[in-house]
Structures are given as C-alpha cells and as structure tokens.
C-alpha cells in the first residue's frame, strides 16, 4: 500500500470541528497503563454511540499507540477527547511522548518496519483502522500521533 508524503509530518488544521466535553488523559508508564487507556477509549466510543466494530477499532488503535510509547519512549500520555463536526461525532486520540523520536517517518509508516522486534505493524495498522492519522516526530524530542475516528451514520 502506498503512503503519501503529504499525510506524514503535517498536522492538518481541524476545520469546522469543535471539542465536546472534557479531555481524558491517561499517563503511560508501564504495560498496565495500556489496558487502562484502551478501556477509557472504549468507554468513550460506547458513550458516543459508536458501532460495536468501531468501538473495538478505537480500543485497538489506542492499544497500539500506547504500546509504542511503552516500547520506545518509556513514558508519555494518551489523550482522548470527543469532537463534533457538521453532522457527526468523533473521537480524537493523541499519543504523545518525549522519547527518542523517529528518525525516518517514511520508513516507520511502511508495513513490516520496526526498530524493535517482531513484525512492526503498529503505525500503518493504526492508520488503516482509523479515519484520519497524523504523525510528527523530532529526533530526541519525541513523537506525537493524532488519530481520529468518526461515527458512522
């Protein structure tokens, strides 16, 4: 699957979209926090009336992003909030860490790439199961991933 350059490293302005309710922030320090983060994400998706499959996709994406933090950055946070746009509700997941950063984003977004062990499907997988995906990273400064899922009508 081809990855377009424009989607990477560029934070798109969120047009016509307004935050709803309060942010949830889950600090990620250990593997136990992964479970907490995805539990919170699922609760939010259920509360917004997402379809069962989409609730699971949101929880799965959070699981991937939180695990990346544990594996590569030691600690960071997962921020969850709900947003409204024209005629739809959505969830924004923001995963932030101040770890070593990703030197080659293009490579990191390629299937099968991993600086740790295993298949390394984390980031491209998240991009596939979410509706919108943005990533920015600075070496030695950390990585921020923002992913959105909109409720299907």
């Amino acid at each position, binding site marked *: 699957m081809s990855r377009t350059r424009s989607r990477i490293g560029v934070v798109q302005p969120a047009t016509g979209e307004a935050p709803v309710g309060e942010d949830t922030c889950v600090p990620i320090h250990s593997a136990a926090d992964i479970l907490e983060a995805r539990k919170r994400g699922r609760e939010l998706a259920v509360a917004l009336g997402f379809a069962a499959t989409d609730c699971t*996709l949101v929880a*799965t994406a959070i699981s991937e992003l939180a695990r990346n933090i544990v594996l590569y950055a030691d600690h960071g946070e997962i921020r969850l909030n709900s947003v409204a746009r024209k005629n739809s509700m959505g969830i924004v997941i923001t995963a932030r860490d101040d770890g070593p950063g990703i030197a080659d984003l293009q490579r990191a977004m390629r299937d099968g790439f991993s600086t740790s062990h*295993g298949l390394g499907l984390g980031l491209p997988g998240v991009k*596939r199961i979410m509706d919108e995906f943005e990533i920015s990273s600075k070496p030695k400064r950390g990585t921020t991933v923002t992913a959105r899922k909109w409720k299907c009508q």
Partner: protein
Amino acid sequence: MQVPILKQGAYLIASIQSALEDDDLVRLCDALSTQVGKSRARGVIVDVTALDVMDSFSTRTLVELATIIRLRGAEMVIVGIQPEVAVAVVRLGLKLEGVSTALDLEEGIAYLDGKARSSGKEKNDRG
C-alpha cells in the same frame, strides 16, 4: 493475572478470563510451551472469548506460540475470537497465518479430535 491451564484428555486448555497485560500473555505462552511437553499433550486450545482487543502484540505472540507448539509436536487452535475483534485483526493487516481457529471450545475440541483421527489413520493404519 494468571491464566489457568486445564488438562482435558490429550489436550491443554487455556481460557483467558479477562484482558491480559503483555507480561501475563508472555507468561501464559511460556507455560503452555513447557507443559505441552511435560503432559505429552496432543493439542492446545487457547480460548480468547474474553479478549475485547487483539492488537499486533497479542496476535504476534499467539502466532509465535502456535509455531512453538507445532515444533513441539502438538496442534494449537485459537477459539472464541469475537466478530468485532476478528474485523480489527484483519483490518490491522494481521493474518494469523498458520494458526487454526474455531468458533468456540466445543468446536476447538472437535477440530483437534478430527486432526488426531486423520493423523492416526496415516501413521498406523489399523485396517
């Protein structure tokens, strides 16, 4: 949280009761690969009915376990994958290739019984 491993006839059955932390899953896999030799099990069933998320880590770990079990001379089957979880796994781009799956515990046992019958026929044809 530890996952209990039951021995039922020639099979080992591990029923995951709730969402697992990474370490618990790794521990379960270690325990299964050890016990499959000790108990001379012919098959291993991992019941994931209670898992609401199977991300790339847990999927990869289970695929690795299946390979190890096969190398140890037994057959592994994953049972109880929820429909939504199945969709998520596939959409993540994970295939669970080389891993057998069945609807639930009953089906898993039936699957292993079938495997045992067909391999038994091949090995020593009782005529």
